[in-house]
């Protein structure tokens, strides 16, 4: 599976969907999920909380390690994926789809995110 062309990407390996009515979806890339190994626990930001681009807003725990979750954008969290909280394996099986993490109402246009091709080159994926 390749990185979806319509998404933008951060160097912390998050993806951001195109915004609809100012709200975009955030997840981690397949490359990141593969590097983590089996994800067993996901801690997401709370609905209504404010996230800032490049800052931690949660954590992803796998068999071997724990990684901080960074927000690729700034804004207000409008929804979190409860499915992935109860079944973290979705992050591994469908990182770009059912394994999405949270939705955010953008407070500013994201700067310096990568295109799919740029991210592929950056991550070697």
């Amino acid at each position, binding site marked *: 599976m390749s990185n979806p062309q319509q998404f933008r990407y951060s160097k912390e390996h998050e993806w951001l969907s195109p915004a609809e009515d100012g709200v975009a979806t955030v997840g981690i890339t397949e490359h990141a999920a593969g590097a983590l190994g*089996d994800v*067993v*626990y996901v801690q997401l930001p709370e609905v209504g909380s404010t996230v800032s681009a490049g800052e931690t807003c949660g954590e992803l725990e796998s068999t071997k390690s724990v990684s901080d979750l960074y927000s690729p954008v700034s804004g207000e969290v409008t929804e979190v994926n409860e499915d992935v909280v109860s079944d973290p394996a979705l992050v591994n099986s469908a990182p770009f789809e059912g394994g999405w993490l949270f939705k955010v109402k953008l407070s500013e246009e994201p700067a310096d995110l990568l295109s799919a091709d740029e991210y592929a080159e950056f991550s070697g994926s």
Partner: protein
Amino acid sequence: MTDSPPPAAAGAPRRTALDALHRSLGATMTDFAGWDMPLRYGSEREEHQAVRTRAGLFDLSHMGEITLTGPQAGEALDHALVGNLAGLAVGRARYTMICAPDGGILDDLIVYRLAEQEYMVVANASNAQVVLDALTERAAGFDTAVRDDRDAYALIAVQGPQAPGILARVTDADLDGLKYYTGLPGTVAGVPALIARTGYTGEDGFELFVAPADAEKLWQALTEAGAADGLVPCGLSCRDTLRLEAGMPLYGHELTTSTTPFDAGLGRVVKFDKTTNGGDFVGRAALEAAGTPSRKLVGLVAEGRRVPRAGFPVVAADGSVIGEVTSGAPSPTLGKPIAIAYVDTAYAEPGTEGVAVDIRGTHEPYQVVALPFYKRQR
């Protein structure tokens, strides 16, 4: 600064005889004790479940083999190690330890008696050189030769309830007669092998020591023989969760130079009653003088979902530190995080209330349980 390049492959990880095969299988590789080893091939949880329910195939060629030969090989080992090896029957294996003079554990070992005057010591990869040096030094006064056989063997393990049936398809050796912790020379898939019924997963299984040149052939034969039973290649990641569930210690975590066998609850491996060399062995005086340990190894089971890791503090209800996690992981079998930890004896009783692990600043409640977490149905 010099202009000369570093020596070839200085610090480069060593590769096992199965390296190309692992890469062709798409393994995620990791540096482990100076070796490039497969961490996982796909999902480590699926690999774990395969070993618990069917069978898994492991490359363990990083383990360090050291051979002692000669009329006093047994006496030398009895002097060098805490166990009784002179009394070990030919064909049997024993779990034992090598300690420093101060009683600290240098490594935990499996020793096989291959013949009347031949023993094979299997050390952890990270300690192989230390063990080789110590055995060489400690055997100096005995009529025995210590041989570094680290490069003489590849080691392949097949582990899981289906392991006996799978192995039986590629060998005529009497596997039924091969009891737990025994080993015998035989032929597997047409190649000479030392077949041992040992393992580090909590399941039935075998470890096969073969010449590195024969490793690929054996791996492929076992892969084919196990296909119908769902045997899969398994990496070190699931090996760690398997041994953790089985309550088995890992050197560098539960066992270190600053712990004695008694600290680790493994005092049974120390044989004060052995009679060779007048009963003396390296570390004896220190181990005899060691008092009752103030901490005990226990199992911890999470009530929440955050995973404790080695080094995390164990805390009491009032927040005081009462111990330290030595190993922790999400348990695929229990479906929740588990850990092994040293805790003050006052809190070590299974069922002790109010015990928590400090996970990045949050005190997560944990249940104290007896080890192991998992025991197979025999």
